[in-house]
C-alpha cells in the first residue's frame, strides 16, 4: 500500500509539472492578450509612441512573445526566475520576502481556522437540529455574508482606532517580539479565518451528517458507543474525502485570494505583488507569482486527493 501511495504521489507530481507548464503558458498568453505592455504602462500617461518604442527596444520586448516565453522557461529550469521588467530587480528577491510573509500569515490562519472549523462542523453535525446547531449555522452564514472588506474595516475601527489595542496596519508594527507578532497578525488572521472557515464548517457538517445515516453508525450505537465516539471513529473516517477537499480549497484561497486583507491591513504579501505585476504587465513577475499560486494549489489538492484515496480502502486498487 505504501508503494501504491508512493506511485500515486509520483504520478501526481509528474502531472503537476505538466499542469504547471500549461498554466504558465496560459498565463503568459493571457498577459499578452491584455492591452498595453510594460513599456507603455511604465511610462503611464507619458507614453508617447517614440518613448514607448525606445523603452521597449531597450527592454528586449521586441522579440516575439514565444521567444520571451521560452527564454523565461529556460531560465526557470536553471532556477532563475528572471528579472522584473518594472525595476530590473531579480524576481527572486522581490518574491522571496513577500512569499514568506504570505506563508506566515497563511500558516497562522490555518492553525487557527482549520481546527476551529472542523470542530464546529463536526459538533454541529452531531447535534444536528439543536439550538446550538442552528445558532452556529446562522452565525456562519451571517459572517460570510458580510463582505470581507467590511469585516476588516470594522475590525480596524474597533480594535485599532477606538480601542487602540492593535495596530491598524500589520506591517508598520514591530515584529521582533512574540507579542508584537500576535498583535500584528490578530486582525488579518481573524478576518481570513472568517472568510475561509465557513466553507469548511458547512462542508464538514454536511459530509458528516451524510455518513451518520449509515447502518454502521447504527451498529456502533448498538455497541454502546457515545455520540462523540461514533462521530470521530465512524462518521469522520468516511467523510474525510469531501472534508479534506473543502479544506484544501479553502486553504488555497490563503495564497492568492487574500488581496483584500493585504490591502486593508497593508500587509506585503504575494497576492498584492501579483496584482501589481499584472497592472504593470511585468511578465517575469506575473509568471513567477502564477507559478507559486499554481504550485501551492496543486500541492494542496494533491494532498487532498491522496488523503481521500487513502481514507477509502475501496479506492485503493
Amino acid at each position, binding site marked *: 500500500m505504501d508503494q501504491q501511495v508512493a506511485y500515486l504521489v509520483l504520478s501526481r507530481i509528474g*502531472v503537476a509539472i505538466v499542469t504547471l507548464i500549461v498554466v504558465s503558458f496560459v498565463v503568459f498568453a493571457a498577459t499578452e492578450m491584455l492591452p498595453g505592455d510594460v513599456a507603455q504602462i511604465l511610462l503611464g500617461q507619458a507614453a508617447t509612441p517614440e518613448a514607448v518604442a525606445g523603452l521597449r527596444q531597450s527592454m528586449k520586448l521586441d522579440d516575439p512573445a514565444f521567444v520571451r516565453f521560452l527564454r523565461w522557461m529556460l531560465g526557470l529550469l536553471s532556477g532563475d526566475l528572471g528579472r522584473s521588467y518594472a525595476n530590473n530587480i531579480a524576481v527572486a528577491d522581490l518574491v522571496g520576502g513577500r512569499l514568506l510573509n504570505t506563508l506566515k500569515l497563511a500558516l497562522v490562519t490555518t492553525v487557527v481556522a482549520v481546527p476551529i472549523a472542523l470542530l464546529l462542523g463536526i459538533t454541529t453535525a452531531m447535534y444536528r437540529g439543536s439550538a446550538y446547531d442552528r445558532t452556529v449555522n*446562522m452565525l456562519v452564514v451571517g459572517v460570510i455574508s458580510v*463582505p470581507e472588506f467590511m469585516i476588516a474595516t470594522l475590525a480596524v475601527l474597533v480594535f485599532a482606532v477606538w480601542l487602540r489595542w492593535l495596530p491598524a496596519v500589520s506591517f508598520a508594527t514591530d515584529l521582533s517580539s512574540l507579542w508584537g507578532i500576535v498583535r500584528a497578525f490578530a486582525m488579518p488572521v481573524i478576518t481570513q479565518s472568517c472568510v475561509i472557515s465557513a466553507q469548511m464548517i458547512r462542508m464538514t457538517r454536511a459530509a458528516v451528517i451524510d455518513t451518520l445515516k449509515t447502518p454502521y453508525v447504527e451498529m456502533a450505537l448498538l455497541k454502546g458507543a457515545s455520540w462523540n465516539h461514533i462521530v470521530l471513529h465512524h462518521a469522520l473516517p468516511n467523510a474525510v474525502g469531501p472534508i479534506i477537499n473543502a479544506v484544501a480549497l479553502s486553504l488555497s484561497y490563503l495564497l492568492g*485570494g487574500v*488581496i483584500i486583507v493585504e490591502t486593508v491591513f497593508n500587509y506585503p504579501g504575494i497576492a498584492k505583488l501579483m496584482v501589481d505585476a499584472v497592472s504593470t504587465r511585468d511578465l517575469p513577475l506575473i509568471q513567477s507569482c502564477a507559478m507559486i499560486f499554481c504550485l501551492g494549489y496543486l500541492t494542496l*489538492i494533491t494532498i487532498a486527493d491522496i488523503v481521500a484515496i487513502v481514507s477509502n480502502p475501496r479506492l485503493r486498487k
Partner: protein
Amino acid sequence: MAPGVETLPTSGYRINAVGIAAFIVILFWALVAVFGGFLTPYPSGEIVDLDYFGPMSTSFWFGTDYLGRDIFSRILVGTRYTVGISFVSVCAACISGVVLGMTAAVMGGWFDSVLSRVLDALNSIPSKLFGLVVVAGLGSSIPVLIALLGVIYTPGAYRFARALAVNINTMDYVTVARARGEGTAYLITREILPNILGPVLADLGLRFVFVVLLLSGLSFLGLGVQPPDADWGSLVRENIGGLPFAAPAVLMPSLAIASLTISVNLLIDNLPVRIRDRSA
C-alpha cells in the same frame, strides 16, 4: 419529529417553519428584483441630498450614500443584479461542476484525469488576470459576467462533487446499475446524485454567498453592472467610508445581503420533504 412542524396537506410536500420563513424572504427579494425598479422614490443615480451619508428620514428611508443619493432606491434597483446574476451564475457553476464531477467519478480513467487536471489548471489561474483578459477580449456585459462567474466557480463545485461521488461510485448499487448496462447519464442523475445531494446543496448555498460578494469585486474590474446602478456588494463597498458613523448607506445593503444569503442557506437546510406513503 421536531415541534413546530407545519403541514401543507395539498402539495404532497412538508416544510418546517424555518423553511417557510426563508422561502418568504427569498420570494420577497425575487419580487423586488422584478418590480423594484418601478417602485423607487427617486432615480437611483440622482443626487437628492446635499449631505452625504445622511441618516434615515421620512424622505430618505434608508438614508443617503456618499454622493447624497437615496440608498433605498439604489437597493431596490440593485436587487435585480444581485439576485439575478448570483442566482444564474451559481446555478450555472454548480450544475456544470456537479455534473462534470459526477461524470468524472463514474467514467474514471483518462476522462477523469484529464478533466480534473484541466479544471485544476483553470482554478490555479489567478482570477483577476482571468477577469481582465475576459474584459479585454469579450468586453463587459451581464452575460459575460455571468459566464465568468460560472467559470470561476465551476472547478470548486467539480472538485467537491467528485470527491463525494467517487465514494458513492464504489457502492454495490452503482455496480448493479452498471451491470444492467446503464449509461453515464442515468448513473449520475439517479444513482449518485440523490446520495450526494445534501452536501452539494450546502455547497451551492455557500457559493451563492461568495458570488454575491464577488460581484462587487468584479464591478471594479469594469465587469458587469454599470453605473449608476450597482449591486448590493458594490453599494457596501462604495459606502464603506460611512462605517465609522454607522451610516445606513453601508448598513442597509449589508443587511439586505445578509437576509438574502442567510435565507438561501436556511431554505437549503430546511428544504421541503416529499410525503411518501410508508404504510405496510
